Structures are given as C-alpha cells and as structure tokens.
C-alpha cells in the first residue's frame, strides 16, 4: 500500500474539525433513553385480577433457564391458604440476577404467563446476596422504573397476559 500524504493530511483536518462539532453523547442519568416495549429487563411475576398468583410452581421456567438461576419449591394450596388457582403454588421462588442472562426463555416456557421480563434494567447492588430476588420482590411493582417507548409507535401488540384475568 503506497503512502498517501495528502489524504493523511486531510484526515488531520477531519479530526480537527470534529472538535468544534456538538458531541452526540446522551448524558445518562439525566436523560434515560426510552426502551422498546419488548425490552427484556427485570422479571415480574403476575397475578390474576382476583388477586391470586398466576404462578403454580411447575418449575418449567427453571428447566428452561440456560443459566440455571431460578429456584422453585412448590407447595400445596390449602383452603386456609390459597395462593394460586389450582392445586399448587410456588412457596419459594427465587431468581439469582447475577446469573440471569435475560434471554427470556423462562417467559417462553411459562404455560400460565406468570413470569415475564419487564423493562427495568437498573439492577445494581452493592452485595452479591442482594442479587437473589425473592418472590415478594418479583411480585411487587418495580421501585425504579425506566422510561418505555410508546407501544403504538413501535407497533407492539399488547401481550395477552395483560388483557385477560
């Protein structure tokens, strides 16, 4: 490759001119770019509209998980303590967020639309033990929410699990 002195000098000119252009950086956290509606973020466990949990503790999500980060221990619903419709519910449901790769396989595997991947990605913790999310944490509304882009704009259909009880 023969030397190109003129073009090299033109390159210098380009970099020099760039100094005076406005940078393109979006300053996080003052500006948080809205995520797409189907963005795979923090998991959420859902309830039916009558308050019963959808999760029956079938452990299919644990079987599908490629990172082996879900722990499910099921128990029987008793008349005094009815947690989910049906025979069984998940007594212990833990997801180890430090192992999770956010692939969404658990959402695909769940036959009851009980677990889905929501949109939150601000999951930093100081301690590794805090990264194990228990069932209450996953059932509750997320504390830190991120802006989500308009679903209409991206032609994203509203998922079925949000429309029926």
């Amino acid at each position: 490759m023969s030397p190109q002195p003129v073009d090299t000098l033109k390159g210098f000119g380009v970099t020099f001119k760039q100094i005076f252009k406005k940078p393109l950086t979006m300053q996080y956290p003052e500006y948080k770019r809205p995520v797409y509606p189907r963005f795979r973020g923090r998991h959420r466990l859902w309830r039916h509209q009558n308050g019963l949990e959808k999760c029956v503790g079938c452990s299919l999500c644990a079987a599908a998980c490629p990172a082996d980060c879900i722990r499910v221990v099921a128990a029987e619903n008793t008349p005094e303590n009815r947690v989910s419709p049906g025979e069984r519910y998940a007594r212990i449901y833990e997801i180890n967020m430090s192992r999770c790769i956010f692939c969404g396989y658990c959402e695909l595997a769940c036959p009851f639309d009980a677990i889905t991947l929501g949109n939150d990605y601000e999951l930093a913790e100081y301690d590794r033990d805090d990264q194990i999310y228990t069932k209450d944490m996953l059932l509750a509304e997320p504390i830190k929410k991120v802006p989500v882009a308009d679903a209409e704009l991206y032609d994203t259909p509203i998922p079925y699990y949000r429309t029926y009880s």
Partner: protein
Amino acid sequence: MSAAELVTVKIDERSVQVPKGTGLVETAAAAGVEIPVFCYEPRLGDAIGACRMCLVEVEGMPPKPQAACTLTAQDGMVVKTARTSEMARVGQNATLEFILVNHPLDCPVCDKGGECPLQDLTFRYGPGTTRMTFEKRTFEKPIPISPAISLDRERCILCYRCTRFSESVSEDNQLVAVNRGAQTMIATFEDEPYTGAFTGNVTELCPVGALLPTQPRFEIRPWEFQAVPSVCGLCPVGCNVDVDQREGKVKRILSRNHPEVDEGWLCDKGRFGFSHLYAEDRITEPLRRVRRRGLEEISWEDALEDAERLLREADGRVAVALSGSETTEEAYALAKLVREGLGAHTAMLPEEVGGGLDAFRVPLSAIRDAELIVVLGDDPVVERAPIVDLWLRKARRAGAEIVEIGPAGDVQTSPGTTARACRRLKTGELGSRLRTSERAILIWSGSGAGGGSHLAALAADLGFADKPGCGAFFLPETANGRGVAEAWAAASDAEGPEPEPLGLLIVSGDEAAANPNVRALAERAERVLAITMFHSLAAGWADLVLPGTSYLERDGTYVNLEGRVQRLRRAAIPPAPDELAWIAQLAARFELELSPYPSLVFAELSERIFGGVTYEDLGEEARLPERVPLAAPPTASPDEPVPPKATAGTLQLLRYRPLFSGAAVERVPELQFQRPAPEIELSAKDARRLGVKRGEPVNVRSNGTSVELRATINKRLKGGVARIAEDHARNLHPTVEVSK
C-alpha cells in the same frame, strides 16, 4: 428350562436372533428398535394388550395392527414398527390421541411431568394437536387412597398395571377397576385405605401421574434432584434403591431393580420410611448428662474428651451393644477401638448370625425357580423380609409347592419348637422329597435359629451342598447383622473375660437403644455411652449421647441375608458427622490407626473377611459370591429353651415384630396407618371356647400386667397359641389368660 433355541426375527429391516419365546418388545429392543408400551410389564405376569400402544404390523397375520407385547418371537417373523409401517404409525398416533381425549391438562401441576412416559411417547409418536372440543370427563381429585398414596382418577389411562399388581404380585386384590366404559375408575373396596406391605410399588408402576406418593408432593421435578444409587438398610434383604435427593435432603426413594435381590419391588417401609431423617426429635449435637439438669448440648471437642474419659475410666470393663444396622466399616472401626485400644472383647448382638449357610448360598431369585419350598419359623415372612414374601408368591404362581411349618402354617408346631421341626425334616415324607428335589429352598423365618446352624445341619444332611439349585436362607432380624458380627470378629483374635462389674456400656444404634435387654444391662453398668439418632430412645438413661446417622447418610457396605456385600452411598447430608469420622479421632487418642474414610476401612477389612474384594468390584449391582465348599458337617448350636406349654385356661403367647415398627417407622406420619392395630389373634378353637367373636374387646392378663385388645380369629393358628404384635404385647409373660 431347556437350552434356548435361537430364532431369527426381522424387525424393520434388521435381523436379530433371540431365544425362542422372547417377547416381541424385548426382541425389538435387542435389535435396537423401540416399541412403545404402557400396560406391558413382564413382572406383572402375562401381557394383556390393554393399552394398544405397541401396535406393529406383522406379515402373515390378519391385516390389522397387532399388539406386539402379546406376541412372542417365532422363527421367520417379519415385524414392521411405526418407523417403517404406515399402519402401525397411524395406529399408535390414534392410540395416543384416544388416551389424551380425556386426559386433563395437568402437566404443569402434575408431579410426573418430566419423567412421564405419556409425555415422552406423545412427543415421539403422538399427535401435535387435539381435536377434542367437548368437555372432558371429570372425577373428584386427588383422592388419598392411603395416607401415603394419592390417586388422581382423571389422569388414569386405564393401563391396569396397578390392578394387576394388586391381583397378581402382592395378591391382596385391594385395587380394582370399578364402573365401565369412560367412567371406569380405580378404587378400593368402599374407599378403605390401600393397606399392605407393598402398596408403594404402584406409584412406580403407574405410567402417568395418577398414583403418586404424597411424601414428595410437588417437590420433585426430575431436573431438580439427583438420584443416588444406594441400598435400603431397614431389613436384611437390602433392596437396591435410587435415593432422590434435592439440596441435600432425601425426597423420594425408587427401586433400582436388582434382578436377583428385589426384581424392582420395594416394601413400603423402605420406600416411605426415609422421613425419619427429619424427625423433630433428631439429635444433632452431642449431649451430656448433667446431674439434676438432664441433658445439655456440648461441642464435639468436649464430647470426644468426655468419651475418652469414659473409655479410660472403665479400665477395660467395656461392653458394646450393637444393633446390627451399622455399616460393616463402622462396626469394624468401633470393634478395633474397643478390642485393640481398650482390650475389651464383649459385644451383644440382638441375635446370633453367622456364615453357617454359606455352603448353600443361592440368590433370592432362586426361590422363584424352585419347585419345593419349606418355610419354618414362628414369624410370618412378610414381617421379617417382605421381598422374600413376594418371591414366594411368585413361586407359588409358577407352580411351586410351599409348605409352611409354624404356629400358623400347613404343619402346625408350637412356638419355639422350630429347631425340633427342623430335625424332624431329616426323615419323613417331606424330608425324602427334599432329598430328591433338584430345586428346593429352605427358609427359616423366626428366632432361635442359632445363626442358621440348625438349617445348615439339615441342609447338609439333605445333600444340598452338591445341588446348585437348592439353597437355604435364614431371615435375620437385623439389616447388617452378619456384616457387624464378622467385622467384630475380624478386629481382633483375642478373647476376654466378661466384664464384671460392667464399667461402660456402649450402645450403638437405635435398635439397640430400644432393646429392653440392653436397657436392663444399662441399669447394671456404671456408665453408658449411646450412639443414637433420636432423643426419646436413650436420652433417659445414657451419660453421653452422640448423634448417629441413618443408612441414607452413610457410605459403607451392608451384607444382606444372601451373603451379598452391597454398597451404600451417602444420599443426604447428615446433621452430625459420620460415625467413622469421630471414631477415627477417638482411636487416635488411644494411638490406634484408623482411617475416617469408608473405602480405606473397607480395604483393610476386605482382606480379612471378604476375600480381598474392592469397592470397585462391588459395583452398582453386587454379585453373589460363590458357595463356600462344605468342609465338615455343620453342628447345630444347642436349642433355645422351649417356652412352657400352656396349661388349661391359659394360652401361649407368640410375640412377633411387625414390619411397620421400630424407631424409624414411628416417626413417619404417612406410615402410621400401617402399624398394627391393638389386636390379639386367636385360633378358631380358642375363640369358640372363650365365646369371643371377631372384633370384640378382650382382656389379656399375665402375672402383674393386663391389657385390652381386640380379638381377631386366625383360622390357621394352632390351638392354644395367641399372637400379639410386639408393640402391644409389652410386658406380658409367655403364658397369658384371655377373658372377655
């Protein structure tokens, strides 16, 4: 059986040669072709072809799919399975579609999911969608047909494996199919609980989640637990099991199917008895007796200090009460510590065990092939070694003749006279038949066996030593009595005097702690050191209690009643260290070299008593060692004293230890319904004499104690004998008075 004649069968373009009469499913498996089945289970007897899953096309037979499980291999047969035959493929697809028509959508909540043959076969041979748009038939579910098993009738695919098991293996006919058509369902008579020693096997047989054990309900998904191959340690048969453990806790026990020992069946005690590991009164820390305060927990360092102090203070006047459920390595370690370290040579085992029958060794499956079987003894076989009872039933179905000699047998004898009956067998008509038969088995099921020596003398006299098809079994009380006794003997050759007065009694194991004889000895001892699992057993009278472990939590070996050495594996994490670990530490304080690792202890031991076999040789399916050649005619040990015959008005008391008893079973809530009811068995003659009808309460008295029991009538029981379970007999004397 005659030598196998090989026939050639062509399956799916593959040729294979199999012995004539082999079932077609096994023939296909030999050729590497899978024929899916639901109802076919060779252990349940003849194939019935009920589920129509194994449809194949056979050339030359009528032009419709045939059930392969009902066919046997014939020379020149040409078989086409679903892989090459459109007819078979459509047939299997339709069969699955029909099965799924009324099958509920329970997979996520069904415990069988993940290990369900219906799921797997539907995936492989079944339809991907359903055409069922109507309501499925429903039943009330789940129904507990016993506290240990739950039945879900909607999931049942009516393969009839459970009813066939109940009818032709355990022969109790409790599970039947009622109603008909689409409303057919499995039920017990009047919804009584399904009781028996072998009920748990239907949960393993059922190909769907209809019959499931209640213990691990909802906690087992096959991808969440690990199966550890081990051996059951609750009775001397030593059935091979797979222990399913999750996160260090045992969840379920399945059979591993050793074809010579258990043929894939398990008794309920071994299957459901594991939850005693998690009983509330399980001891997890060493306990020391403090005056006026009872027991206090101490650390292991303190406990070992105390133990060393106790051992030294006893000054050689030490006796060890073994329970026979220790592993061979543990018994050897304890023996070495006491015999070599302390010079004390006294040990108690609940009964005498020995290798007297090694010259007549046969595997348990030889019972199935026998033509004449004689069962001697006071105790029913099913209470001592339940799987042997299944082998006997199988032999009877195959046409063998079984003669029971005992208080409730075909030949009635008084309790405690089994040795005499044994000697009488040397002559007489039965004796001569035994002498001429090529396949005869003797079984001693009771106490007073003298380690099997009476049986050995009889068998030697009958000439069994030269006949490989003939053998003798003695059913001991303890799970590893033989191993423990041999380990104790191997630890040292020295003899010692009886320690008088007794300085220290070491009680090893729960069975020993519950034994009233040991308890009586403990009263005489100055100090007692107990190694036990449960609080209530020895805590009342021991000075130092060290926590024990169960057979599920130990690595080691057990010697079963055949003389087979089988390997146990640790399946659960014990709350306290393994006995070998602290015995080794204690031995170090007495300058003894003892390894804390079972494999090394076994290597040391195997040189002396097992003929140098290694852990690797034992493998997963242990082999039965060869017969020991008969050196000299064995001498029988002296007879045990015969209990006094009943005088007029009194009855001879026959105690028996039921299968569902013991420290382990007491702590399993699901098995409480199987424990014997407070009943007394009377013979028909005595019931008439006393004017007692079945079910009436009677008062049973002996010198000083009396107890209220319900009367039942056993028509086969000898007159003058009453039988009561050990749990209820308590302090009654050998002769009792019974009145209304």
